[in-house]
């Protein structure tokens, strides 16, 4: 079976710095693959290359076997890839429900683009579903700029999911969260694999080990190791480069 996401020999340089260099791995369907590595290892750059925010200088990105290397974000989105951001990037002047509906709008047929928004019933239903699933229903009409950090992080995931993607890239979803919120988010991410394949960047090692099916370790732009959490944890190179500092 073709892997849902296939990264082949991906690389990009900024000036002389090879931010991402010869990175290859695959994400298996309905599994959680986590990318870990110290700060500056190139994890977020990797996400930018996969999602189309940056164009790679070499290598390939295949989504469901289709070459999407260097495609613009709206095209990788159309191919079924949705991503969140390390620093929350929502529409702060719109309400919670409006943010979700904007994301869910892509589910509607093109013919409804110029019809009144109330006709977009599918997007509306999806919005309601997401509000319930992420326990945001009581805040549906709040402006996103007024939400708490934890709520914004949850909404960020909900917005990514509202368009029914095949692959979800989550860039440090628990960043800045309290301990309780982190546990709740982990539970939430675990539940996502019924619908999507998850590619995760995460710093909380405990979380990574308990949540991931597959772990990719990056160090100075390169892939240092990959495998199941136990295999990676036992790898001496990983221990030296990463856990040694932890």
């Amino acid at each position, binding site marked *: 079976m073709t892997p849902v996401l296939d990264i082949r020999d991906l690389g990009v340089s900024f000036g002389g710095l090879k931010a991402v260099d010869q990175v290859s791995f695959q994400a298996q369907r309905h599994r959680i693959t986590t990318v870990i590595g110290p700060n500056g290892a190139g994890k977020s750059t990797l996400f930018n290359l996969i999602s189309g925010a940056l164009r790679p200088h070499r290598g390939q990105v295949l989504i469901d076997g289709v070459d999407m290397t260097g495609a613009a974000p*709206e095209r990788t989105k159309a191919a079924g890839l949705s991503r969140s951001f390390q620093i929350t*990037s929502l*529409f702060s002047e719109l309400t919670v429900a409006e943010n979700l509906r*904007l994301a869910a*709008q892509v589910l509607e047929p093109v013919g409804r*683009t*110029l*019809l009144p928004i109330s006709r977009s019933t599918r997007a509306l239903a999806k919005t309601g579903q997401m509000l319930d699933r992420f326990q945001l229903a009581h805040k549906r009409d709040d402006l996103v700029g007024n939400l708490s950090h934890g709520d914004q992080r949850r909404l960020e995931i909900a917005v990514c999911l509202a368009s029914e993607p095949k692959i979800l890239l989550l860039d440090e979803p628990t960043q800045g969260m309290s301990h309780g919120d982190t546990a709740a988010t982990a539970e939430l991410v675990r539940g996502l694999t019924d619908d999507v394949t998850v590619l995760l960047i995460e710093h909380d090692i405990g979380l990574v080990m308990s949540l991931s099916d597959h772990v990719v370790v990056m160090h100075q732009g390169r892939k240092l190791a990959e495998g199941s959490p136990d295999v990676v944890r036992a790898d001496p190179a990983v221990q030296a480069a990463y856990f040694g500092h932890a």
Partner: protein
Amino acid sequence: MHDRLTQSMRASHLLALLFVLASLALAAMGTATDDTFYLRLGTEALIFAGLALSVDLLLGYSGVLSLGQALYFGIGAYVSALTLMKVPSFWLAMAAAFTASLLAAIIGGLIANRVRGVYFALITFGLAQVLAKVVYNTRELGSSDGMIGIPVIEIAFGPFSVSTGSPVGFFLIVLVVIMALYALTAYLLDTPFGRVLTALKSNERRVPFLGYSAWRARMAAYVLAGVVAGLSGALYPMLRGFVSPELMFFATSGNAVISVVLGGVGTLAGAIYGSVLLVILKSIIGSWTEHHLIVIGLIFMLCVLFLPKGLAGVLRPPVEAWLSRHRRIPGPVPDAPVLPAIAVDTKAAPQ
């Protein structure tokens, strides 16, 4: 679903309706008193309201400041004038202005949408100045004098016809055209397409990651605004009988921006009120002093400082609240049940 933008748009519609009623009252009074001056002034204010509408679409919804929207207004005016001098047909002039401003806005959009923010403002300013200077120096277009002698025409609607020379008749025609442009813009903003535009204003960088091409949305907004400006401009030579390069100059673009700020950015109806307010202010203050621009400038500064949401920013929230109160009657029961409240009132009365 309760929708914030749909609801605030309803408030704008009510303001627009009040505006139409006030305009009809002016038309009736003008007819009764056989007035020409105020009707002509009102018609001019309405025409510039169309230009302000196009500025508000860009500034208030897709979040970019155009300092050269007069470019498309001027193109509409010149193309309409040239058409009318050859064939005295209202519909043909409007169709020609539509086509010309559409093409011009596509070209202008391809240039201006390469950049953002301040640079966008500067490029739109530059584009308008360049074309204005070209017109200013083209003898075939009347150079700096512009073109005079645009004939008075009959506008035919089936069996009826209205002359552009009739102050009240043409005032009503312009009212219909401008309100149609308002309705079209307001309608489009309340569609999924329009919501992508408002998303651009809020966080453009996230838009592509939701699956929408930000560039296409920006182009669509820019071209739509260009056409709205062009169609408004097409009415100008029918009113005044001439066109001049000043129509494309920065003063015209700047006035439209001032109108939008006075009226309330991002309200559409506010742009129309703002334009009328500016024309009234100019004509009143202009009758006291020839330095009226100083006073207008001061008013603009005071408005930005103390009334940043403009006239509609003050008028709309109460209208919105009133509208939502009146819509809730058949809906869910409000927090405090109605009956006990009345009972409390009757008890309180003897005290």
